[in-house]
C-alpha cells in the first residue's frame, strides 16, 4: 500500500517542478459525511467538501459543532456512519489495517493538548512520526535508521527545537511542546497536516508563534493544512479558506480574509464576544 501511495504521487510531483523534491500535497474530498456516535449524538450531518492540495483551511465553529469529529474522519480516527471521505484519492472510509496505517502515515496530526509522551525525549517523540515508515521490529528495538534520524533532526530544526532533542518532552513549555508535536507531524513527510485546536492551550504570543509555524509548513513545504480554530482573528489571519460548521453542517465556505464579523455571528449563531478573539 505504501509503495502504491508513493508511486501515485510520483507522477504528480514530477508534474509540479517547483515541488519536485517534496511529496505532492493531497486534496481532501468529503461526500455526504454523517457521523453519529453510539450515544445517539450526530456530530456531522451531511458534510460535503472539496479541499484543494496545498490549501490552508481554517475550520471554525463553537465547541460541539463537529469540527473535531470532522478532522478525525480525515485520518479514520473517527469512523463515518455514512458518506465517503477521500484523502489524496484514497478512500479513508474503506481502508482497514495495513492500508489505513499507510494512509495515516502520510497525514500528520496536531492536537490541542500536544499529546507527547512526556517521559520520552523530544527526539523519541519526533521519531514516532516515522512509525508508519519503519518495520515493527525496528520500532520495538528502538533501532531507528540513520535516515529516519536525519528526517527527525530536520523536522526539529524546522520548528527551531533541534537544541532540545535530548530534553524530556514534559520539561518543555506548552509552546515548545506544540512545536515538537509539529515536528513529529513533519517527520512523517506528510501530504496533509490536520491540526485540532492547536493553540487553544497556549497564551496569545505563543499561539501566534505556533500558527506561524503551521503557515510556514503550508507555504514552504506546500502541504495541505486543515486547522480547527474557535478564535475568529486567528482563522482570518492564518487561513486562506474558511469553513464554518454549526451543528454538524457546513454553514460557510469562502475566502478567510473576506469573512466579516457578520459571517462569524452567522457561524456561531450568536453575537461576537470578546473571548472569540485572541488579540495579540
Amino acid at each position, binding site marked *: 500500500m505504501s509503495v502504491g501511495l508513493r508511486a501515485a504521487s510520483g507522477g504528480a510531483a514530477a508534474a509540479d517542478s517547483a515541488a519536485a523534491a517534496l511529496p505532492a500535497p493531497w486534496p481532501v474530498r468529503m461526500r455526504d459525511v454523517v457521523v453519529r456516535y453510539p450515544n445517539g449524538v450526530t456530530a456531522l450531518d451531511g458534510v460535503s467538501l472539496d479541499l484543494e492540495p496545498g490549501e490552508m483551511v481554517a475550520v471554525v465553529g463553537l465547541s460541539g459543532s463537529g469540527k473535531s469529529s470532522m478532522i478525525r474522519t480525515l485520518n479514520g480516527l473517527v469512523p463515518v456512519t455514512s458518506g465517503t471521505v477521500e484523502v489524496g484519492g484514497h478512500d479513508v472510509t474503506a481502508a482497514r489495517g495495513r492500508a*489505513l*496505517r499507510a494512509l495515516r502515515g502520510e497525514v500528520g496530526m496536531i*492536537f490541542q493538548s500536544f*499529546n507527547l509522551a512526556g*517521559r520520552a525525549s523530544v527526539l523519541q517523540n519526533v521519531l*514516532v512520526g516515522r512509525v*508508519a515508515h519503519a518495520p*515493527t521490529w525496528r*520500532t520495538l528495538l528502538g533501532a531507528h535508521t540513520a535516515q529516519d534520524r536525519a528526517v527527525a533532526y530536520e523536522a526539529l530544526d524546522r520548528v527551531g527545537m533541534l537544541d532540545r532533542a535530548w530534553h524530556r518532552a514534559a520539561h518543555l513549555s506548552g509552546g515548545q511542546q506544540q512545536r515538537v508535536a509539529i515536528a513529529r507531524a513533519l517527520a*512523517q513527510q506528510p501530504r496533509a497536516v490536520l491540526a485540532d485546536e492547536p493553540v487553544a492551550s497556549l497564551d496569545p504570543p505563543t499561539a501566534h508563534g505556533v500558527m506561524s509555524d503551521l503557515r510556514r509548513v503550508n507555504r514552504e513545504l506546500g502541504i495541505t493544512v486543515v486547522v480547527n480554530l474557535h478564535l475568529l482573528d486567528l482563522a482570518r489571519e492564518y487561513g486562506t479558506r474558511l469553513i464554518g460548521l454549526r451543528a454538524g453542517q457546513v454553514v460557510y465556505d469562502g475566502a478567510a480574509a473576506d469573512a466579516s464579523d457578520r459571517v462569524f455571528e452567522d457561524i456561531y449563531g450568536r453575537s461576537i464576544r470578546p473571548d472569540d478573539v485572541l488579540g495579540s
Partner: protein
Amino acid sequence: MSAADVAAPVRPGRAGRPAPVPPRRPAGRWKAAAGWAAVLAVTALTLAPGIGVEVDLGAMARNWRNGADKIVALLQPDWSFFPRTVEPLLETLQMAVIATAVAGVVALPLSLWAARTTNPHRALRGTVRAVLNVVRAVPDLLYASVLVAMVGVGALPGILALVLFDVGIVVKLVSEQLEAADTGALEAARAAGGTQLQVNRSVAVPDMMPGFWNQLLYVLELNVRASSVLGLVGAGGMGLLIDAVRSFYRYDQLSLIILEILVVVLVLEAVSSAARRRLT
C-alpha cells in the same frame, strides 16, 4: 427571627436578596445507619460461640505464661549463631533479586496486554486478566509447596513461586496505572500510522517505565519477606533455617534471624525509596 434575617447581614453584597437555600438533601440517610447495623451484626455473629471463630478469652488468661518464656528467649538473640545464618540470608537475597528480574521481564508485555488503553483486543485482554486473577488468587506458600514437589527442595521452587506471585501483583498495578494515564500520546502515535505494537513501544512504554520500576522495587521488598516464609515448605533461603531452629525451640536463634531480616528489609526500603525519588 427566621434564618434569612440572620444570614442577610453576613453577606452585605446580597442585601435584599433571600439567603441562599441549598436543594433538599437527598433521601437515604438510613443507609449509613443500616451499614453500621450490618457491621455490628456480622461482628456479633463471628464472635458467637459455636458458629463464630471461637475466641476464648479464658484460655488466653490461663495460657499466657507458655508464650512468655518464648518471648523472653526472643529478647535475647544468640549472636554466636550469626555465621550459620550468612549463607541462607544471601540465598534469600539472591532468590528475591532473581525472582524480581524474571518477573519484570514477564510482567512488562503482560501489563500492556492487560490494559484497555494499550490492548483494544477484548478477547485477548480478557484472557490475560482472567489467568492473572487466578494466579493472584493462589497463595505463594501453596505455589511453593506444589513446586517443591515438582522440582525438588531448594532455591528453584522458591524463585518460581515468587515469580508467579510478583507477576500477578505487578501486572495488576501497572495495567491499572496504564488505564489511568492520559491516552493523548497513544492517539497521536495511532494517527501517525503505527501498529498497536509500535504505539505501545514508542509511546506507552516510556511513560509507564517509572511506575513499572516503582512496582518492581516494591515486589523486591515483598520477596525478601516472603522468601523467608517459603523455606518453611522447603523452598530454600532463610525459611529452611527458621524451620530448623523453631523445631529445636531455639527462640534465641530465631530472634537473631528475625533481626537480620528486619535489617535487610530496612536497608532495602531505604535504597528503594531513594531510587524512587530519582524515578519521577
